Each structure stands twice: as structure tokens, then as C-alpha cells.
């Protein structure tokens, strides 16, 4: 079963604008990760935020995590055409049986 649910399912913006994608999940987590997938580079890890963190930055990416609401958001600032891809959140539960559960993804299209 898929734990994370991304919102919106699809997003279309102009180059230079910011893009925000949201992820909601159901059970407690150890960490939450965001991945990008496009035909050129496959599935690539972007950023990981742990359950005791609230915000994290990496270049033009900003991720927030609200464990009380079981939700996370990914903000891409100053978007580029090359950011066009599907973005997935993946939740990880801890312990010896550590594994990732992916959501269905948000398809982001950045128009030049």
C-alpha cells in the first residue's frame, strides 16, 4: 500500500515561478524523502528530512515537515524547464525493517 499522497497530481507553471508540492502520510515515520523522476535521469534522490526536523534546504529546494499534521511540502524556487519531472515523496519507518513507501507523485511541467 502507498502511504504518501502527493498533491496536486499535476502542476504547470512558467519558468522562474516557484512550485509547491505537498505530501500527506498516515503513520509515524523515521524520515521523509523527496525524489525526482524524468526520462533522462531516472529516479533521483533530492532531499531527506528526519522526523525531528521541521525544515531543510538544498540549493533551490526547501522541504518542510509537520509531524503533527503528518504532512510535508517541497518548494522549488525560481523553477527552470529542466525541473520538469515527476516528484515523489517517500516515507521511511525505522527499526530493523527499514523500507521506503512511495506516493503516486506530482507531475510538474515548467514552461519556458
Amino acid at each position, binding site marked *: 500500500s502507498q502511504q504518501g499522497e502527493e498533491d496536486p497530481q499535476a502542476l504547470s507553471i512558467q519558468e522562474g515561478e516557484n512550485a509547491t508540492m505537498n505530501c500527506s502520510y498516515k503513520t509515524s515515520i523515521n524520515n521523509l524523502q523527496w525524489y525526482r523522476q524524468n526520462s533522462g535521469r*531516472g*529516479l533521483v*534522490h533530492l532531499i531527506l528530512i528526519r522526523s525531528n526536523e521541521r525544515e531543510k534546504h538544498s540549493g533551490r529546494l526547501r522541504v518542510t515537515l509537520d509531524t503533527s499534521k503528518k504532512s510535508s511540502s517541497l518548494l522549488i524556487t525560481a523553477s527552470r524547464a529542466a525541473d520538469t519531472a515527476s516528484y*515523489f515523496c517517500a516515507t*521511511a519507518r525505522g527499526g530493523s525493517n527499514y*523500507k*521506503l513507501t512511495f506516493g*503516486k*507523485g506530482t507531475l510538474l511541467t515548467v514552461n519556458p
Partner: protein
Amino acid sequence: EAGVAQSPRYKIIEKRQSVAFWCNPISGHATLYWYQQILGQGPKLLIQFQNNGVVDDSQLPKDRFSAERLKGVDSTLKIQPAKLEDSAVYLCASSLGLGETQYFGPGTRLLVL
């Protein structure tokens, strides 16, 4: 540094036939994963290995799917017999260990007719 290698990249078979996929993880990575990604969905974990031992195969349809990782390096995933609903991209990933960042291969796109 070489990434995760997978072959073949594409495969078309008829239902009830068998098929096998191969994965070579990044050198030194102890943990290897196989995911199934159906069109329009996120990847779903089928099985994960720590060295050559199975850590989790709870979502692997064991009546038709099997996987092995001999010598704790390369891995093969087999489907026998294939069904129409097995049409998907099969992704292999590896990481230094459990809980570490996973690196994905390009995937094998399977079409079952």
C-alpha cells in the same frame, strides 16, 4: 563512479512466459532493492537484500516472482509465469546500508501481451 546497472532495458513477452531481469549495484553497496513501478504510480518495494540475505519480501508475489542475490553483489528478479498486470518498470536500487540514500538504476520496462 559507475551507477546501478540494469538489463535488459526493454522486454516484451506474452502472458504465461517467463522473464528475468539483472541488476549490478554500485560497488560496495550492501543493500539492494527491487521495485515495481506501474504507469502513473510510485515505485512499490518488492524485495530488499542486505548482502545476500532477504530483509523484506512481504510485497513480493511469491507464487510467480523470485529473486536472488548470490555472493551479495549482482541480483536477478524472475517472473514465471507472467501476467498482463505485471507490465511495469522494474527498478533496482542500492545503498551503502539500510537507511542510507538509495541510488536507482534506469529500470527495465516490461510489456506483457
